[in-house]
């Protein structure tokens, strides 16, 4: 599949889970395909980074289900902040551990999972649908974190085979496997599609975190997590991330950034960032 094929399988108004964490191993080429598409009104579930900021800036998000949005080396994403401060998006804000439980519940086909996280906090105050559940054995009243069932999941991995078995080679799998298992359709982009035998040959089988049983389609997307990190293949492009953040300063800056990098195809994007790197290098 291509990234645009994936966007073509999505529908406006869908609930879409996005893997990675902050500005780390985000399926950015798939996000860019959504930016180019006519999709609108999405509910996005994410350990948020620039995926959230870009989708907010492009007006694709109706509702965000989140625990945080951060660019890591830049603590706050200004595009997300603007969307919130202008009241452009609805939110369901959960403790980041609750997000894991919501995905776990969905993956296990359970209606909820109990937790202490959220008790006494804004999570309980600002999510009107959130319920508590009484422990039938001991009597404690706990939060019942509802299943976060996804229409689609988008994740980016280091390697995958053609059938969808997918491998992380960096320090952390994040929650990409859970996102896929919690979704009706899961799309995995990866740096390189390799023969199955090369997966276990490259690293311990425990790094093949995602099973093809949970995967609908695979996209080969070299540099597809750019500008987020995708170690060991590449680190975060800090200079580009700064440019992305600075483009939030005013509408003209954002238009210029969008026209230069986002309005064309993924090939155009990759060419534009290569050109930028060459220009920067020449300075």
């Amino acid at each position, binding site marked *: 599949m291509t990234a645009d094929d994936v966007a073509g399988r999505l529908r406006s108004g869908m609930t879409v889970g996005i893997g990675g964490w902050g500005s780390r191993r985000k399926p950015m080429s798939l996000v860019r395909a959504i930016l180019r598409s006519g999709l609108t009104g999405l509910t996005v579930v994410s350990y948020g980074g620039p995926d959230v900021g870009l989708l907010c800036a492009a007006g694709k998000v109706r509702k965000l289900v989140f*625990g945080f949005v951060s660019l890591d080396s830049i603590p706050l994403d200004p595009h997300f902040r603007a969307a919130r401060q202008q009241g452009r998006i609805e939110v369901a804000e959960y403790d980041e551990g609750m997000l894991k439980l919501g995905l776990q519940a969905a993956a296990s086909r359970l209606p909820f999972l109990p937790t202490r996280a959220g008790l006494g906090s804004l999570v309980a105050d600002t999510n009107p649908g959130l319920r508590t559940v009484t422990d039938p054995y001991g009597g404690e009243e706990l939060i019942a974190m509802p299943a976060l069932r996804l229409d689609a999941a988008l994740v980016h991995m280091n390697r995958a085979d053609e059938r969808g078995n997918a491998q992380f080679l960096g*320090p952390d799998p994040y929650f990409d496997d859970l996102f896929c298992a919690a979704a009706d359709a899961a799309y995995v982009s990866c740096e390189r599609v390799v023969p199955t035998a090369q997966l276990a040959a490259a690293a311990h089988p425990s790094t093949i975190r995602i099973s093809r049983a949970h995967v609908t389609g695979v996209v080969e997307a070299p540099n597809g997590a750019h500008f987020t990190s995708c170690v060991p293949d590449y680190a975060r492009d800090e200079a580009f991330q700064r440019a992305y953040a600075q483009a939030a300063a005013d509408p003209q800056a954002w238009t210029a950034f969008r026209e230069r990098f986002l309005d064309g195809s993924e090939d155009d994007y990759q060419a534009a960032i290569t050109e930028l790197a060459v220009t920067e290098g020449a300075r």
Partner: protein
Amino acid sequence: MTAVDDTAAGQDAGPAGRGARADRPADRAEACVIACAEAFRGDGEVLASPFGTIPAIGARLARHTFEPDLLLTDGEAHVVAGTWAIGAAPDGPVESWLPFSAVFDLLWSGKRHVMMTPAQVDAFGNANISAIGDHARPKAQLLGVRGAPGNAVSHPTSYWVARHSPRVFTKAVDMVCGVGWDSAAAAGPAATRYMALRRVVSNLASFDYDPASRRMRLLSVHPGVTVAEVVAATGFDLVIGDDVPVTREPTAEELRLIREVIDPGGARYAEVP
């Protein structure tokens, strides 16, 4: 570079020409390091999760000296041994793998002590890192709630405030992220069962909570700070005893570790000049 390379440490010295020499008396940033380190005293074999530079220096100092069983991560997915400099790669071996998913499992088990950096904190230890203003349309969107609610009801939780002011030490936080004693009590026994709010450390003083009223109590003022200054910079009434001690001075060995090993580049002065 080696951790005790005097030349390199001198070159990287912080602002105002403050070098790595051990004969200079301890300054405010170093008092804050000690107060943060003290927050972890007695913790034993738990993961110390310090946010912010001075808490990170404090946690490494505590482990290197009086709290050797603490666990520390490399900021990614590994628990690592050793004592390494701020901004440098850890020098000790990997002890275990701790991806984010395992962090949740660990914190729900209680084996963690977090020190977070709130934008607002109130007398009962309610802490806000999410947003300022109205939740539906905040005046200033910050990080989001992160893991603060789960942390506060699961394991020891402390806070670090680099700039003590009435805006931070406020009467009422705009949103409760880290759950305070009163909010937890209102939520019921499941919230209070494993709760352990420990310390609040600021650039002026160190605090804990009065066991009877559960209100923030002035534990010690840093050298050179008066109780009146702390009171003036705090937007709520503190519990203050008759005789407020001064935050203890670092030992000569602690000062050497801070200046030459853990923070030779003077990163602490970016938080507390």
